[in-house]
């Protein structure tokens, strides 16, 4: 009888929801811990840069409350990684606030561990000077100046900081930016499950119920790990895993079909066997792990400017039949007007006109008539050094386009149908990812400071 660990994913993304009864059922089936990934870079750099969180307070608290309640009642740890969606300091602080609030409202008492992964820029400058930061491919240019000029950086922790927190007796662990897989692999490896098995299981668990054949809604996922491999079985009886669905999920979001790079090594799935167990579970064996010098991925966001946008619909057939020439002429007029009225040269801002076409008939007037044979939507997007300047540029753009003449009509015309007042909408700061690098570490826990709190 070897070691067995029962891992449970609350859902694929904290705040995206799951069925309460699925989690209860999974706990009744036995679980050694609950894990949940709370963040991602999928939605772009805005969250890391701004410190904001994607899901609402309500949605995050609902998911967290149920997971905390079940974990504490069962006496098992709850591990949440990439807190607050971006995993930096403000994101982590916001999530810790929710956890403390829930603890107080429910009279829950437990040891809370917070693990930070936002890295001080001077620390990174030192590491850069020492040659400890190397680019992946493709990578934005990173040097001392760009490190200092960025908004913030996070390093993606591996399983060791989670293990450190577990060993310190923490029952609820809230971590900043983490490798999704390590949230789930930490406890199993601590209990003697081979890394290869734990990492591959973590890869399946991190998206919650996404590895099932037909996922109707986000939900929990359960995996039982042992020394030879693992068995995936969705706790929701209406869902099922098949070898195909699990393999397809191993492919998802991975550039390389057979290698998954994690801190400390590479998970090799090239020799893995996926076998059906009954008609809704899958047994996975044959994962291999190749150790490598320990590196953690660095992510960074820098401010790129401020954005204002406008959306315009066009369906006058005479405008549409000369649309390329219309747009070319309009852009020239706009560039000159922005220079004259706003005082900005073309190099000082970006203005893009993204045209979306519906070659069929369109009824976006909303009155039930199919009045147009063709229609186009134009998304006008201005980015400039300040919000005020971005707003000024987009206003020139939409207002000029509105009245831009065509030869067929004598008189002042209005070409753009705006669905909003104001037509121009200030959209706030724009960020860009400024790092796709790895940081060579001697100590996997050193950059990730842990604080413990007794609630």
């Amino acid at each position: 009888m070897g070691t067995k660990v029962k891992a449970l994913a609350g859902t694929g993304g904290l705040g995206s929801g799951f069925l309460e009864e699925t989690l209860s059922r999974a706990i009744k089936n036995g679980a050694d811990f609950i894990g949940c990934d709370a963040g991602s870079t999928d939605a772009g750099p805005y969250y890391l840069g701004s410190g904001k969180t994607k899901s609402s307070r309500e949605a995050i608290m609902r998911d967290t409350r149920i997971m905390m309640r079940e974990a504490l009642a069962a006496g098992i740890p709850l591990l949440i990684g990439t807190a607050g969606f971006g995993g930096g300091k403000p994101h982590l602080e916001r999530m810790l606030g929710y956890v403390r609030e829930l603890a107080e409202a429910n009279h829950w008492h437990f040891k809370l561990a917070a693990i930070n992964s936002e890295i001080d820029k001077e620390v990174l400058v030192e590491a850069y000077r020492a040659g400890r930061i190397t680019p992946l491919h493709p990578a934005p240019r990173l040097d001392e100046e760009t490190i200092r000029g960025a908004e913030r950086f996070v390093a993606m922790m591996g399983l060791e900081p989670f293990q450190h927190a577990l060993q310190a007796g923490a029952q609820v662990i809230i971590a900043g930016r983490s490798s999704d897989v390590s949230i789930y692999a930490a406890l199993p490896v601590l209990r003697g499950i081979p890394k290869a098995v734990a990492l591959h299981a973590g890869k399946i668990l991190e998206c919650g119920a996404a590895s099932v054949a037909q996922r109707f809604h986000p939900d929990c996922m359960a995996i039982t790990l042992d020394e030879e491999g693992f068995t995936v079985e969705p706790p929701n009886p209406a869902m099922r895993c098949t070898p195909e669905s699990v393999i397809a999920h191993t492919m998802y979001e991975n550039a390389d079909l057979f290698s998954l790079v994690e801190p400390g090594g590479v998970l090799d799935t090239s020799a893995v066997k996926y076998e059906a167990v009954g008609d809704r579970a899958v047994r996975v064996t044959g994962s291999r792990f190749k150790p490598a010098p320990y590196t953690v991925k660095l992510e960074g966001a820098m401010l790129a400017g401020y954005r204002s946008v406008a959306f315009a619909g066009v369906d006058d057939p005479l405008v549409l039949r000369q649309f390329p020439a219309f747009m070319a002429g309009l852009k020239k007029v706009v560039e000159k007007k922005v220079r004259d009225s706003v005082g900005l040269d073309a190099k000082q801002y970006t203005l893009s006109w993204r045209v979306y076409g519906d070659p069929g008939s369109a009824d976006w007037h909303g009155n039930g008539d199919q009045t147009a044979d063709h229609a186009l939507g134009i998304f006008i997007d201005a980015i400039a050094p300040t919000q005020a300047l971005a707003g000024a540029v987009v206003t020139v753009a939409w207002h000029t386009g509105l009245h831009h003449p065509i030869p067929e009509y004598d008189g002042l015309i209005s070409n753009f149908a705006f669905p909003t007042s104001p037509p121009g909408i200030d959209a706030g700061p724009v960020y860009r990812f400024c790092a796709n690098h790895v940081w060579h570490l001697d100590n996997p826990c050193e950059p990730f400071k842990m604080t413990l709190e007794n609630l």
Partner: protein
Amino acid sequence: MPELWQLTRLIRSKNAGPFELTFDLIFKDRKSFDQVKTSGIVSAGAISRLYRVPIDQVRVFELPAILALKVSIPRPAFSGDINDTDVYGGQFHSRLVRLLVPEDRREQTGVPTPA
């Protein structure tokens, strides 16, 4: 001539991190999988031309066990960057969907079709 989507159960694209795109094609049956592989319409060269990426930056993987092909390329713009048009990378596969798939002529003539 069938269109690619007619031979598949799934065609999708997604970010593999903010700097790379990955495409998954899962075919309906072995004949379709073989026909598309032989046709070269999603070969490294074809992808290089369709997406304007240097051919040495295109990676193609085969997983015959589930009749799948995976293709990965660097993103034309980093996710969410100023000139990006698709933050999640979910609509990059569209230009593959209606690609025409030539019949495998080898059965008839015994001569391999060029890749």
